[in-house]
């Protein structure tokens, strides 16, 4: 590769070097630094899946001895917080998401052969069903960090769709 019209071979070499540097800086691998204290705490859970990070909170689904439950971990204190009324022995959680305040959690779970979408309020310790209109089977979700908008992946008639639900 040469620089057209350049009178100086040094300038051409410099151009090539700058171009190569530019390409590399656009795509340089960044080594990931694990957070050992948090990861050791997570390791004690057994299996963990479907993480949702927001603010100081990490929501996930943890499992031990074949039973799965939703867990909310305060990353500043590195410990789980109680979620009264959220987990129940006859329900299987499928996906979870938390807002940045750690106040609202959106949840998909299976119970009695049905797949349900629900919103949990931590301060009120209440779980409220969120019906889908038109009906469908929810599979994945995410709350925005403000806890005001919920995006849900829904199966309808063999097609995956995304619903947006504005929350009061």
């Amino acid at each position, binding site marked *: 590769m040469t620089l057209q019209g350049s009178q100086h071979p040094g300038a051409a070499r410099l151009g090539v070097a700058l171009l190569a540097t530019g390409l590399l800086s656009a795509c340089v691998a960044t080594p990931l630094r694990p957070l050992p204290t948090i990861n050791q705490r997570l390791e004690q859970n057994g299996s963990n*899946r479907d993480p949702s990070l927001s603010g100081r909170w990490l929501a996930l689904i943890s499992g031990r001895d074949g039973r799965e439950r939703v867990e909310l971990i305060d990353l500043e204190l590195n410990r789980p917080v109680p979620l009264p009324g959220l987990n129940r022995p006859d329900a299987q959680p499928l996906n979870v998401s938390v807002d940045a305040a750690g106040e609202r959690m959106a949840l998909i779970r299976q119970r009695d052969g049905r797949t349900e979408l629900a919103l949990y309020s931590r301060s009120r310790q209440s779980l*409220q069903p969120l*019906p889908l209109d038109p009906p469908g089977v929810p*599979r994945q979700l995410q709350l925005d960090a403000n806890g005001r908008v919920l995006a849900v992946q829904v199966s309808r008639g063999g097609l995956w769709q995304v619903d947006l639900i504005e929350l009061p």
Partner: protein
Amino acid sequence: MAAALAVGLGACSLPWARRSRPAPSAGWEANLSRQDPALSGDGRLLASVIERQGRSTVLLQERSSGRVLPLRHLSRWQPHSSPSLSWRGRYLAVIVQRGDRRLAVIEDRLTNRLLPLPLPGGREPVRLSLAPDGQRLALQLVASGRWRVEVFDLAGALELDPPAGELLRTPAAATP
């Protein structure tokens, strides 16, 4: 009694249902299969994974208008999965396929940089979640036949993406 209960439950759930609506159209296909939705922290942007020319590809849109926003580095390395956005959508984290390996990457939409995030030990991510401020990343992996979640520090790699209106608390900014 049952009727009263049904009415009570209906009254409880109806206001939510009224606010549900489909994600904005991408404009080129009516029956678009769309998965893995992710909102920016402020709810302004929506990322999702669509089937485009038979390949699972991340799509970024403004939630209110449906306007499609360009992703400079993510037109290849399909299939894409598990997108995640920061507060104002400066960062889009997603899992891509490079060669025969799955890899987490972050596209910085402000600087147009792409950050590949290889996992220590050559492990591969299954799902991810980026903290809204861009300072932490949670990855779901498979290890010894079970799901596992690990959290990583991005504070040295990414600038903060704070919510709109929140000033960065730097020493310079703190000086009167």
